[in-house]
Structure formats: C-alpha cells, structure tokens
C-alpha cells in the first residue's frame, strides 16, 4: 500500500501530463462535436430534403462506424494519401466526428420537441426560418438538449482512452506505465477510477450549471447565482427579518 502510494507520487508528473492530454482531448473533442452536432442536427431536421438527406447520411455513417475504426482510418490510412496529422489532431477529429454524430441526433430531437405553438407563433409574427431558429427555437431546445449532451460528453471523456491506441500518451497510457511499478489493481482500480471520476464529476457540474442557466432563462428555476450563493438571498433574509417584529 505504502509503496503504491509512493510509486504514484513519483509517477505523478507523468500521470499529470497524461491527465492534461485527456483533458485537452475531452475539451477540444467536445467543442468540435458540439459544432458538428449543431450543423448536422439542423441539417437533418430541415424541411428541405437537399439538406436533410445528406445530414442523415453523415450522421448514420459516423454513428455506424466505430471510434476505433475511425481513429485507425485517420491515423494510418490518410497519411498514405499524403495527409499527415499530429496525434492530438487525429484524436480530436475522431472524437468530434463520432460523438458529434450522436449529439446531432440529440440536437435534432430537442429542436423537434419544442412545442408546435412556439413555431406557429413565429409564423404569425412573420419571422424568417433563420430568425425563428436563432431567437426562439434553439434557445428553448438548448435547455432540453443539455442533459443528453452532458452524458455524451462523459462518454467522450471515457472514449479518450481509446486514443492511446494510436499512441497519444494520455491518462490511460500513463496508468499503464504505473501498473508496471505498482500493481494492476492499484493503478487501474484506485488511481484510474479516481482520476476519471473526478474529471467526469467536473464535467457534470459544469453541464449542470449550464442547464440551470438555460432553464432560468426560460423562466424555470432559480438563477445560477441563487443556486451557488451559500447565504440566503436578499428576499429570504428580508422575510426572516420580518418575522422578528
């Protein structure tokens, strides 16, 4: 046990570097996934078949081929056509495309579930399709899609481990190194578990905050400040003060 802790402390600079790679992959991969999800989700949900059919095909293609296959393709096949990309770029691309395709379904579904009355009101007010989406529909769909996007992000975080197969030295890679000097259970079950759990927790907290903010903007639930404030709000303290008299 003590040796394990000591070995972990000694390996910490490497683990930290691996953790940093994992964080970068997660953040950049999620950012790319989100952009692709919005573009593909809007395309797939568009009334014009010239948009919806290509949107659907791209989504199904990247959902239907596994992340590992996509990674290998980008890392080993593309260079043969003279396209040579650094490992981090390959990782971000593959994660972004794969999870972006899943998230596109979430985006499309959330947009479709904004109540019909909202769409009809925009028509009665003569809004253009772009105006309607940007100012009315998307802001409401956003609040609906955040929980599903959050769970996809946690999956993406775990998916980053797969990029170690193309030799990016991420957290899992360094866990594997640690395993050689400690024991397997320690490295994976303790350090690995705690490491990924803390990352996932941080992600979830950020996404919960985003969701609370989005809901507050729709007039549902307290503002982020009210949630985070450890002291009672002014209104509460007023009413408590009132009771004293």
């Amino acid at each position, binding site marked *: 046990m003590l040796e394990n802790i000591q070995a972990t402390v000694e390996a910490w600079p490497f683990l930290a570097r691996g953790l940093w790679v994992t964080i970068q992959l997660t953040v950049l991969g999620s950012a790319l996934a989100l952009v692709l999800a919005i573009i593909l989700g809007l395309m797939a949900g568009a009334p014009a078949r010239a948009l919806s059919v290509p949107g659907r095909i791209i989504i199904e293609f990247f959902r239907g081929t596994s992340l590992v296959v996509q990674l290998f393709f980008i890392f080993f096949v593309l260079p043969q056509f003279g396209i040579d990309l650094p490992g981090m770029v390959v990782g971000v691309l593959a994660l972004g495309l794969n999870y972006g395709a899943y998230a596109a379904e979430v985006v499309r579904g959330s947009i479709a579930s904004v109540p019909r009355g*909202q769409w009809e009101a925009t*028509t009665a007010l003569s809004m253009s399709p772009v105006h309607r989406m940007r100012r009315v529909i998307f802001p409401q769909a956003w609040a609906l899609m955040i929980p599903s996007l959050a769970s996809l992000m946690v999956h993406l975080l775990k998916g980053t481990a797969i990029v170690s197969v193309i030799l990016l030295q991420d957290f899992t890679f360094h866990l594997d190194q640690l395993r050689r000097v400690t024991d397997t259970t320690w490295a994976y079950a303790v350090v690995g578990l705690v490491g990924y759990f803390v990352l996932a927790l941080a992600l979830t907290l950020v996404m919960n905050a985003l969701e609370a903010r989005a809901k507050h903007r729709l*007039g549902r639930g307290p503002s982020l400040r009210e949630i985070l404030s450890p002291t009672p709000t002014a209104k509460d303290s007023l009413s408590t003060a009132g009771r004293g008299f």
Partner: protein
Amino acid sequence: MPTPTDPAATPIIEFRDVEKRFGDNVVLKNLDFHVNRGERVTLIGPSGSGKTTILRLVMTLEEATDGLILIDGDPLTHRIVDGRRVRLSNREIKRTRTRIGMVFQQFNLFPNMTVIQNITESPIHVLGQSKAEATRRARDLLHQVGLDDKADAHPSSLSGGQQQRVAIARALAMDPEILLLDEVTSALDPEIVGEVLGILRRIAETTDITMLIVTHEMQFARDVSDRVLMFDGGSIVEDADPDTMFTAPAHERTRKFLKAVLGEGQIGTR
C-alpha cells in the same frame, strides 16, 4: 365603430372554392366567403366544423388543398397560372403574411424572452423598426392592455389572463390589417375572461382592423360582430348579422346549435 368600407370594394379576405383535406378527411369543401375591410366577422359552429382550420389557412399555418384565398385581391399561397394552381414563392407568401396577425388559445409567448422582448422582437427584426421606436410602441400597447409594470417580467411569472394580454399586444405591435382570434379566452379561468374580452372590445372600438373571430362567448360575438357565420361540417350553414343570427336564425341547425350553447336563455336582452 368605424363603418366597414364600401362592400363593392375588393374584399380583404376572399375564399374561392376552397378545399382543405387532411389525408382522406375533407375538412372544408367548396368554401366561398369574403370579409370586407374593417369588418368583424365571427365564426360559430360545433367543435370540428372547421373554424380553426379557416383561421389557420389565413395565417398560412396550413395551405388549402384546392381553391384560392385572396388577401386584398392578392393570392395568399397559390395562384392560377394557365389554368393550373401553383404555389407562390416563400418570399411572396411572407409579404402577404406580414399583413396578418393571430392570437392563439394557448398564448404561445416565447419563454426565453421578457414581455417587452416578446413584443418588440418582430417589429425590430421583421419590420425593421428601430429598437427605441419598437420599445416606445410596445410600452404604449402594454399600457393599453393594462400591463405597464410587466415589461421586464418573464412570461412564466404571469397569469394566463396577463399572458393573453401580452399576446394581444404582441400581435398588434406588427400593425396587422387582419387580426385572427381563435378562442382566445377558452384557456382562461372564468373570472379572467371578462377582462380579456374588454380589451378586445376596446380594440374593436378604437381601431379599424379587420377581425376574424372564433369564440364561444356569444354575448361578445353579438356585441362586436358585423356579421356571424354559422359553420357545420366544413360549410357555411348561415351568414347573417348578429341580431338576426342570435334572435331569429333562419336555419334549424343554427337554432339547435345556439340552444345547445346558450341553454334556454336568450342573449342580447341586456
């Protein structure tokens, strides 16, 4: 009340042999009627007789499956070219659509915007008004509907009656020539209905907006309407002025319907 303009002038709404089908279900068939500029026309009739569908056709939320709808003589969604019925471009449809406004049974305020943003959004971004201009007008309309203090409130913090008043202000902010009202008090608590109807009466008295109204509030219909159309099964059973319609309807079907909604009591005895 401003008098309706010369009936010989071009009607502001004209249905010509309109058919609306949903799949095999023919909801409106061979429908012909017109509304003159400035007229207030109320549609009555049993549930499912096609009243809402007519308003939705005028608002372009639905498109007729046959026939023509003309707004001030201009085709709304389709025109006849070389004997064939062809759809207009979206741009042409939008040009006519901006002349028409609608208030819905379920209010449909945008929950992601404040009250004032709900009202100014389209005047600014569709009509191209300046923010200051649109805001001034919105505050004036909020005053008219008795909600001066709610400009920065969120729709979710308002009662149903207040939300509907905002929805009325929002529709009026677009300066529509035609205002469509589909059972706008049906979702409200009974004690709130009166205040919303009061606002609509005032709009009817102080503006010359053409109104096409669907309502079960027969006293209101009698007071504000120039004409009442009785519908059944997608066609017009009777077309009469409100006094005739409510006191001496010509058709048995109308009598039965009015008896069902009014009970034995008459209206208009005031």
